[in-house]
């Protein structure tokens, strides 16, 4: 079983603290969502975790072994990288070779690579094995890289924007294949994405990065149970949230909707009903926006 432990990890690019004293543990047998706005440090963190970048300080251990000292443990981690990064998985494999050749190359780096499974996935996504990545669309390049990640059979698989350029049908298929793969061979999966609503139900835990730091890490269900939206007449909502932590409110006409970062108790409900307020649960995406926009208040 392979856990990843990140301890006090930092990386600066000039004046920018891309990753700023991050510590976290990824357990085996969970699907994590790594969320954050553009520039929050998601890609840098994943690159540090797989030694594509060296940290300024801090360390990463895979299965208890420091990756700075033990290169071999990195074969337990497959990283489907951000397409725009200078050292992508695209560059590990010559893009002028056919897809079927890349599958076989991948097998040499990841001995547990499942060739038959990769071929069956290629067929499901209608990716011809004689096609050449350099000539494929953005979407099909993403599909190719996602197939290699799923078929790698690595105990830890990191996906950086796994649905970039994919149409709705292919995104749906990819999520299903990912869940099927994970169910059959439990592993640690990290998905970094901006499409939060469509991935929310796939995730077990969520990690939110903000300006290089961890703003929040917890099970999705706990997070959603610990937030509620309250709506009604603006003056009444304002009266209600005066003694509570409002993390983002919006007013339209005479109506205000506020988001409160705490469990909805029966006392809250009673107080709200007297003011004619309505309570609703919120989506992960709404919580994310509230927590990461400029005015957002961190809990």
């Amino acid at each position, binding site marked *: 079983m392979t856990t990843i432990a990140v301890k006090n990890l930092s990386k600066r690019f000039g004046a920018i603290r891309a990753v700023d004293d991050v510590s976290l543990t990824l357990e085996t047998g*969970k*699907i994590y969502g790594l969320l954050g706005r553009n520039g929050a440090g998601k890609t840098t963190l994943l690159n540090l975790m797989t030694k594509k970048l060296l940290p300024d300080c801090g360390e990463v251990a895979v299965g208890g072994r420091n990756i700075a000292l033990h290169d071999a443990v990195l074969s337990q981690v497959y990283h489907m990288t951000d397409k725009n990064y200078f050292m992508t998985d695209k560059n590990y494999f010559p893009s002028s070779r056919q897809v079927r050749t890349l599958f076989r190359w991948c097998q040499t780096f990841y001995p547990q690579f499942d060739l038959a499974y990769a071929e069956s996935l290629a067929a499901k996504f209608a990716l011809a094995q004689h096609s050449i990545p350099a000539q494929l669309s953005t979407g099909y390049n993403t599909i190719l890289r996602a197939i290699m990640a799923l078929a790698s059979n690595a105990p830890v698989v990191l996906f950086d924007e796994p649905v970039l350029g994919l149409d709705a049908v292919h995104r*749906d298929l990819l*999520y*299903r294949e990912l*869940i*099927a793969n*994970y*169910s*059959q061979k439990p592993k640690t999966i990290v998905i970094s994405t901006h499409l939060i609503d469509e991935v929310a*139900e*796939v*995730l*077990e835990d969520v990690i939110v990065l903000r300006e290089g730091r961890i703003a929040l890490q917890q099970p999705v*269900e706990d997070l*959603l*149970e610990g937030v509620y939206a309250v709506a009604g007449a603006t003056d009444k909502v304002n009266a209600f949230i005066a003694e509570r932590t409002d993390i983002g409110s919006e007013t339209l006409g005479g109506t205000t909707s506020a988001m409160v970062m705490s469990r909805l108790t029966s006392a809250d409900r009673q107080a709200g009903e007297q003011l004619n307020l309505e309570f*609703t*649960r*919120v*989506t992960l995406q709404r919580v994310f926006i509230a927590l990461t926009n400029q005015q957002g208040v961190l809990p």
Partner: protein
Amino acid sequence: MIDFRVDRPIFLQLAEAIEDDVLDGRYAEDGQIVSTTDLAVTLRINPATANKAISCLVDEGVIYKRRGVGMFVAQGARDRILKKRRERFRKDFVDPMLHEAAKLGIAEEHIITMIKERGRVT
């Protein structure tokens, strides 16, 4: 297929959807339920969420597991679900309706008339 809503946890909605299948007779007592893996893949949800829904149903005596074989609907499951749902009917359906009626200024007698005119739903 279930269209999940925002208003309640996914695992509860899944558990209720399976209960609905038992109520409607789509799952017979002692009939086999699809595996949690099939549930997770088909509904595109985390397998832990599917497991949580199943655990709830096992705790409530709706489903039982047979190791290595699968999951089945328990004897008397339908009656247990009916009892629970009937107890909740007022809170889940009558109270929200009366709340909306009050907002719209619809009198109680008018609601009763509407129910009688509507007749029995089959």
